């Protein structure tokens, strides 16, 4: 049961990626996503695959973990692949039967799209979620957004809310499990009957869950006030984020990747993505 809570899925480690500054890492992830979408040419895609393999190798996160993260996406990946195979028109006809026309281009296109989605998810999760604690992540985000505080956006409050939300996900999951067990012990049945019946069967879970969430919120607010929390103004930090040589190095590597992808897009021969 605890194994199901993969949210945030930080993987303890001390690799190059783990030690990057979270502020930079957020920017790197955005940059990486942009580069992934820039790639059009098959060779550019090959370069991307290489970069993703390199990222995974550097992070020292077991492949098994990454594959597990991809599992929920199987349906979406299969869906886009199938749409591409059947709808894309090209020059080389492979199958021409009744209303089904499959072209070689369609298949290549489908493959490239699948590669794109896989790299998108695997790459960014290795770069960000697997190697950054949720706390460091929100901290980095707060720092990145801090200029917005100048135009009176409550950046600190926003990031505090995010931290608290992340912190309480496992707690609420555990609580839901407890309440479900308690109601099951009284003969509640969540898995049979019509949709309406099943929806109704959720009431005995949702009401106690909401009540306890409100109770927790109140307790947390009191506890924070007892420790003199008054918001972000004038608050200093225990852990100050430091940028090291690793961040410019990573930045350089990504720029090189971007340049490589753009160059290959223009000059390399071979198939180019249709959408």
């Amino acid at each position, binding site marked *: 049961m605890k*194994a199901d809570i993969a949210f945030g899925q930080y993987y303890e480690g001390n690799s190059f990626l783990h030690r990057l500054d979270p502020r930079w890492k957020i920017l790197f992830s955005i940059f990486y996503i942009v580069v992934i979408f820039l790639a059009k040419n098959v060779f550019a895609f090959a370069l991307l695959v290489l970069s993703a393999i390199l990222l995974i190798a550097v992070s020292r996160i077991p492949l098994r973990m990454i594959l597990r993260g991809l599992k929920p996406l199987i349906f979406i990946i299969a869906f886009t692949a199938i749409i591409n195979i059947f709808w894309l028109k090209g020059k080389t006809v492979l199958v021409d039967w009744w209303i089904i026309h499959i072209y070689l281009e369609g298949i290549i296109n489908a493959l490239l799209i699948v590669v794109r989605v896989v790299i998108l998810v695997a790459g960014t999760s290795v770069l960000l979620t697997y190697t950054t604690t949720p706390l460091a992540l929100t901290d980095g985000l707060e720092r990145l957004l801090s200029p917005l505080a100048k135009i009176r956006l409550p950046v600190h409050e926003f990031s505090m809310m995010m931290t608290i939300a992340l912190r309480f996900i496992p707690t609420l999951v555990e*609580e839901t499990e*407890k*309440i479900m067990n*308690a109601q*099951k*012990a*009284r003969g*509640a049945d969540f898995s049979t009957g019509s949709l309406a019946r099943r929806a109704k069967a959720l009431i*005995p879970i949702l009401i106690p869950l909401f009540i306890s969430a409100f109770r927790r919120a109140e307790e947390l607010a009191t506890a924070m006030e007892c420790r003199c929390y008054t918001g972000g103004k004038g608050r200093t930090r225990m852990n100050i984020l430091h940028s090291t040589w690793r961040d410019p190095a990573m930045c350089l590597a990504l720029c090189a990747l971007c340049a490589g992808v753009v160059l290959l897009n223009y000059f390399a021969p071979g198939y180019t993505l249709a959408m």
Partner: protein
Amino acid sequence: MAEITLENVTYVYGKGAPYEMRALDDVSLTFRPGEVTGLIGHTGSGKSTLVQMLNGLLKPDSGRVLLDGKDIWADPKKIQEIRFRVGLVMQYPEYQLFDETVESDIGFGPKNMGMEPEKIKQAVARAAQFAGLSPELLSKSPFDLSGGQKRRAALAGVMAMEPDVLVLDEPAAGLDPGGRREILSRIREYQQESGANVIIVSHSMEDMALYCDRVLVMENGKLVMSGTPAEVFSRAEELIAVGLDVPQITRVARALREVGVDIGLDIYTVKFAAQRLLSGKGKV
């Protein structure tokens, strides 16, 4: 009546993961009807896991759970019938209250059993009386009750199903001493009147000593001791070795023996200690 037997039950959390934990390790034991059995062990010893085995909330990885000699997992579709026969009151049960009135909340279990509305009413009234809830509270919202009343309402919610086996996980946790005594003696009364098989999980050695006929001690997913309170509490060194304690009065008896007043080591209630002392057994 209902006898529950565990046969070589093993249960592992997070199988295959780095944090794999053997919560129950080849446990075999029997809970007999007509008894109050106490289950003690410190946090993480496997008590709560064991308790969830009894009504089929968890399924053993290996081994069997037998209710009156029949495997409760023989037909997984009928597990609900087992849950009606083996009532489980979870830790802090007041957090499971949800309905508009106390009465309908207590009636949730019987309703799930498919009882007639008239019968539900009777069952609720009986259960409320057992749990010590006054009738005028039944029409209130469960969220308007005090902490102790909520606990009793939740307890009544399970009692109303009139289970043959009543399992309670820390029924008195977080209550004041008066509330503890009240709720535990209500449970004891329920057992005596219904002849049910009652199993109580607790941290409190005093409560175990006072209310149980038999005490089981768990450590690291294994059953390490079982016997009457006198038998178990006379083995104080072993209990302390597994991170548990003995009732205060047992410690007093041990200290008395060290200064030369021997009233025996099988002392576990104050009353009993007083009897021994008065009978002149402790003469120096």
